[in-house]
């Protein structure tokens, strides 16, 4: 009896190793957001006896200038940072899908007006646009959500608009007309579900972008106000002690970076899956 091996016997890492690690990290992040108390203590408890201490077994990430535990603050900060980013992305998706579909279904001039305003919006850098909005509305978590939501909305609106053009011409929409369906029913049953295809994937990648934007704006003092822990705000507070206690700002930055990378890896993976299925 002969044994035929079509592949050499080598132990390889699983095919989706990167995806699995990233997804695992995100699951951990979700748990941290939902029950931060399980992982860390009070983020606001100051201890003047232990100020700017380096990472140790007692304080994994060290302590900051007021003697607060940096690890506790990063863990609790995840809730703020991710909540802002998620809310902003949700706002952008909902508004973007509605506006994009509206443009795709509207008459020529209305569509042109909407499409050009999406173009105009995406011509500005995200941060600049958000700053502009906050300058008008004032700083705070809510205006951060709205500002990032508006600034990232064109991503979704443009994709959905293009999808709508394809779908509205599709044979199945014509057929539904033949069954005497009302316009609203047509849009809800056939157009909306079929234009949504690529949106979840863009939203996952967009979420990473929103986290960065939220952190960036908070760093500039436009978002969450101290003493609430927020990654961007922590970076900002720690920057004065960068030479003596780099951990105060570097470690929150590392966590934020890892989160964004994980989201991007997962998003790209989903994107390939979706495109593979369609192609």
């Amino acid at each position, binding site marked *: 009896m002969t044994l035929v091996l079509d592949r050499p016997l080598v132990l390889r890492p699983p095919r989706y190793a990167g995806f699995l690690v990233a997804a695992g990290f995100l699951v951990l992040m979700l748990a941290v957001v939902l029950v931060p108390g399980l992982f860390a203590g009070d983020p606001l408890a100051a201890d003047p006896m232990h100020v700017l201490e380096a990472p140790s077994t007692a304080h994994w990430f060290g302590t900051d200038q007021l003697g607060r535990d940096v690890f506790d603050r990063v863990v609790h900060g995840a809730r703020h940072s991710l909540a802002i980013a998620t809310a902003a992305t949700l706002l952008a998706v909902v508004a973007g899908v509605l506006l994009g579909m509206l443009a795709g279904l509207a008459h020529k001039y209305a569509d042109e007006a909407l499409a050009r305003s999406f173009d105009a919006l995406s011509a500005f850098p995200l941060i600049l646009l958000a700053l502009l909005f906050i300058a008008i509305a004032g700083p705070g978590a809510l205006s951060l959500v709205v500002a990032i939501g508006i600034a990232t909305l064109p991503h979704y609106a443009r994709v959905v608009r293009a999808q709508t053009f394809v779908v509205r011409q599709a*044979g199945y929409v014509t*057929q539904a007309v*033949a*069954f*005497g369906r*009302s316009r609203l029913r047509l849009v809800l049953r056939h157009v909306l*579900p079929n234009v949504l295809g690529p949106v979840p994937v863009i939203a996952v990648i967009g979420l990473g972008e929103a986290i960065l934007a939220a952190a960036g704006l908070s760093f500039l003092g436009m978002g969450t106000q101290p003493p609430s822990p927020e990654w961007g705000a922590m970076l900002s507070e720690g920057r004065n002690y960068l030479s003596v206690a780099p951990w105060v700002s570097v470690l929150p930055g590392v966590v934020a970076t890892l989160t964004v990378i994980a989201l991007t890896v997962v998003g790209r993976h989903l994107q390939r899956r979706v495109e593979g299925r369609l192609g």
Partner: protein
Amino acid sequence: MIAIRDLHVTFPHRRHTVEAVRGIDLDIEPGECVAIVGESGSGKSVTARTLVGLAGPGAVVRSAKFEVDGRDARAFGPEEWRRVRGGFAGLVLQDALVSLDPLRTVGAEIGEVLRVHGHRGDRDLRVRDLLATVHVPEPERRARQHPHQLSGGLRQRALIASAIAAGPPLLIADEPTTALDVTVQAQILALLGERRAAGETLLLISHDLAVVARLADRVLVMRDGRIVESGGTASLLSAPSHPYTQELVRAVPSAATRGRRLSEAGVVAAPEPSGDVVLEARGLTKRYGRHTVVDDVDVRVGRGEIVGLVGESGSGKTTVAQLLFGLVAPTAGTVTFEGEAWTGQPERRRRARRRHLQLISQDPLSSFDPRWTVRKIVAEALPRGGAVEPLLERVGLGAELLDRNPRQLSGGQRQRVAIARALAPRPSLIICDEPVSALDVSVQAQVLDLLADIRATDGTAMLFISHDLGVVHHLADRVLVMHDGAVVESGPVDDVFHHPRHDYTRELLAAVPTLEGEIR
């Protein structure tokens, strides 16, 4: 010239192996015209490509004997195959738009073949000669143009010119006329006939028996990678011996098959038209800017009547369908449906009557919501609570298909689902826009039989749009012939097709290859 014994072509894949060609013998003598006929998936194209060493990526070719031009081709390397292609055998493929480089002029394309095969002398002059040989008007101007500037017929001629450029003794044409209008098809067939008369050997690949009948000396009928029958064209077509060939020959719709079933022996009852009018259009006109697409067209469809609408591409057939369906508003003219005004009504008012006017399109897949199963697709057309199963049974589909996605179905099954859906609201008129054009002959036969049955039992009227005169003559009661947006002739189908009065109708009819005409 070509002698092949026991040819096998397989495509090994990870899970299963596709056996495209399973042991065929093929001999081609100098000067003859051999045709391979078969339906999609029969292995006919793979066979043709194997002859020039282009079986495809990953293909495994085995044979007991494979001689090309007296030499053993099994030992050929890439270099030798390159010399066979163009030098010994010219290849003409179906779609010239894909086969010609869009970024190069037609002249450069043909000149390239001359250069590769070491043509001496003035190449431009030779290119012009070649274009003139294949009857391209104004060869000098055309040689400087790109493929997209040429019509489908001219592109096909240019492709033939590049195939014969190096003077190969063998010309292989794979579905050379499939995408073309009938009158253009007739011209290309005449051109291939000329090449034959000039002493070239021809291998013709086609799904269309009638096209092949015009040119071939011998016909090989392929099915599932095997040759099921072969013989002289006339004897094979008039007295086919293999059941599959018999089925194929019987399935070709034409004047002679009127009232008969195509997919099996039997007759279809054709009810007497009652004289009631279901749909009437008067003076229908559609202009886009200064361009008139539909010009003063009158259409009348009686209850239970099948009206054929024939014409070549660009004649405005599909626009007429859109105007009647009411998706596009006419520039002038009116449509009356079931005795009430149809055009000029707001969609809100038409909605309740929509169900009585249904549509079947050429490509059923694009008319299904991609996320939906067969059950959901058909149920959408049904009144609340209607059952899907009886409808599927009517169109000859089993209940096991209910939860499949249409993408998992064959072309014929998809079209049956589309028909089931169109029947669901019990329409009085179905507009069928080229419903069988994308189907194989035997599947087309089944679908045409089904449509005839539906008319006979339900009395559903149909407007049947087609470029295929044979299909229309087989099925329709009356016919309208469209040309450049206008109806040039109309009347009972036998009158129009047997005694055409308009020049264009005559031209169209003369161009149609028919089995009867060729065998006689």
